[in-house]
């Protein structure tokens, strides 16, 4: 196990873009963890005069918005929401997507047909519109945003898992398990799933980035939880000052960009790491 970790680390060292992604991601995580330590006041509190440019007012390094709120505080607290929503929604989508994909791929036949038709159906409905309608019906809150994003994220996972299961199911060792009389559930989740996990990990990383961007889009439009400040909310509220105080929307936008970029870099790195065959082909 330690050998595997060590090899992983060494490969990560070779792959500098992945290291950059991990570094950025740790930065965002650190911001999320230290938010309440560094900024004991709520990010909604007025801490100084309004519309102070970064560096102009001592109390606010990144300046203040139109209501005199600290932009740096918003960025730190926003990191929490982005990470929470991104990871939680993809975690929910993973549970659901893996279940559906596993059953469809393992049993095939009519089970596969029915489950995949349902999955395709959800992929037909425009994702972002579906997320908006789910939030409209359930009400705007963090929990409901997570549900809405999970609802639109699971089909991609289900299709991927189904494909992997269909291939792995044909391998000799799985046939061996069947002959041994192992239960279907045990074969699916103890024997096959660990071998299908690498593709799922890569896809999850990318999906977290997408979920974070979609959350920001929802709160940008004003459909997010009204009780928390997120990066999307900050951009939405700063729109009115686009001409005279463009830093208000630029800063949270950069935060979003860097976070999503970091997750994509990590995803690409993991892909190279977990699919060495592909890496060789790319280099050759």
């Amino acid at each position, binding site marked *: 196990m330690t050998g595997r970790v060590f090899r992983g680390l060494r490969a990560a060292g070779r792959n500098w873009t992945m290291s950059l992604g991990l570094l950025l991601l740790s930065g965002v995580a650190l911001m999320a963890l230290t938010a309440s330590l560094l900024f004991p006041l709520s990010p909604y509190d007025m801490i100084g005069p309004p519309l102070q440019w970064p560096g102009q007012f001592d109390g606010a390094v990144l300046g203040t918005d139109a209501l005199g709120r600290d932009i740096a505080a918003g960025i730190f607290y926003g990191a929490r929401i982005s990470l929470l929503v991104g990871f939680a929604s993809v975690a929910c989508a993973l549970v659901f997507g893996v279940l559906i994909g596993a059953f469809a791929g393992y049993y095939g036949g009519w089970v596969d047909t029915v489950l995949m*038709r*349902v999955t*395709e*159906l*959800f*992929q*037909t*409905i*425009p*994702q*972002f*519109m*579906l997320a*908006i*309608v*789910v939030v*409209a*019906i*359930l009400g705007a809150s963090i929990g409901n945003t997570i549900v809405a994003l999970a609802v639109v994220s699971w089909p991609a996972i289900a299709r991927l898992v189904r494909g992997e299961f269909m291939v792995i199911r044909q391998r000799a060792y799985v046939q061996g398990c069947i002959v041994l009389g192992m239960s279907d559930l045990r074969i699916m989740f103890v024997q096959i799933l660990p071998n299908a996990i690498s593709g799922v990990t890569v896809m999850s990383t990318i999906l977290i*980035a997408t979920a974070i*961007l979609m959350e*920001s*889009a929802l709160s*940008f*439009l*004003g*459909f997010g939880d009204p009780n928390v400040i997120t990066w*999307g909310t900050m*951009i939405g509220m700063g*729109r009115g000052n*686009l*001409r005279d105080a*463009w830093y208000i*929307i*630029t800063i949270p*936008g950069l935060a*979003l*960009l860097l976070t*999503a*970029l970091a*997750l*994509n*870099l990590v995803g690409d790195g993991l892909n190279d790491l977990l699919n060495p065959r592909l890496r060789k082909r790319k280099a050759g």
Partner: protein
Amino acid sequence: MTASPPRIPLSFVGKRLLYGMMTVFAIAVINFFLLQLAPGDAAEALAGEAGTASPEYIAELRAQFGLDQPLMLQLWAFVSRLFTLDLGYSFRYGADVADLIFARLPATLLLMTTSVVFAVIGGIVLGVTAARFANRLPDRLISFTGLLFYATPPFWIGLMMILVFSVWFGWVPTSGMENVLAFNTGWARAVDIGHHLILPALTQAFFYLAIYIRLVRAGMLDVLSLEFIRVARAKGISEARIGYRHALRSAVMPLVTVVGTNVGGFLGGAVLTETVFSWPGVGRLMFDAMFQRDLNLLLSILILSSVFVVVTNFVVDILYVLINPTVELK
């Protein structure tokens, strides 16, 4: 190219058509159950939250939906209403929902088509260039730019472009679809709309541009290693001609399907782009409907958009057979 276009058997079209109809039906069912999740009964959810509906209207809705009937009959009422395109009435707008949506459709279609064209052309040009310089500087630059586009919130790109190109440089208007006060007609109007169209279309295109660059690059790399390309090289055909004429034809094939599956994404993205640029399309209508809690209008837009995706997928299926005669018809 003297070969006659392949004949598409009617049974194939029929099957696809039937499949599309079933999909639309299933989408209606999903929406029905979504509506069941709303607090209160469906009539209150549809009309009550709009805040302006009269009690008579709610009572009428209840009767129309048959809310005193068993769930299955309610479902039947809901679905048959949809199939007759009777989407109800919006008190906020004082108009039929179907009319509202169809009036906004041309603006959205114009925006969508333009951004698809931008994304596809950009994706092909940049993807082919990246593949020709695989793993060298131009490739790395293009791939990294693509990744940046992929990771940037589209609405933020839109706002930043307004800041740079409208506010600072003053090249293009900040919002709207045309200068209505100018009372332009004919060509002048078309030019004016085109002028307003550039930024929103670019905003929508960037995200997909990133995907298409990757796809074309990968497809080109696969094709460029094949035998017939080596033959073309041996014949002394220039690299650019090989890239664009010989390899591209095969590499671009998967792009058709992917663009087809992205139509739903473009529609969803339109909610953001049209809100940022005050573009008077269906996406902007959806934003307003959400803001005013007009749930019926909201659901109707979702359903019609899904139907639109089904129709486009049907067209793409047929198109794919036409451009790629080797595909097997099932």
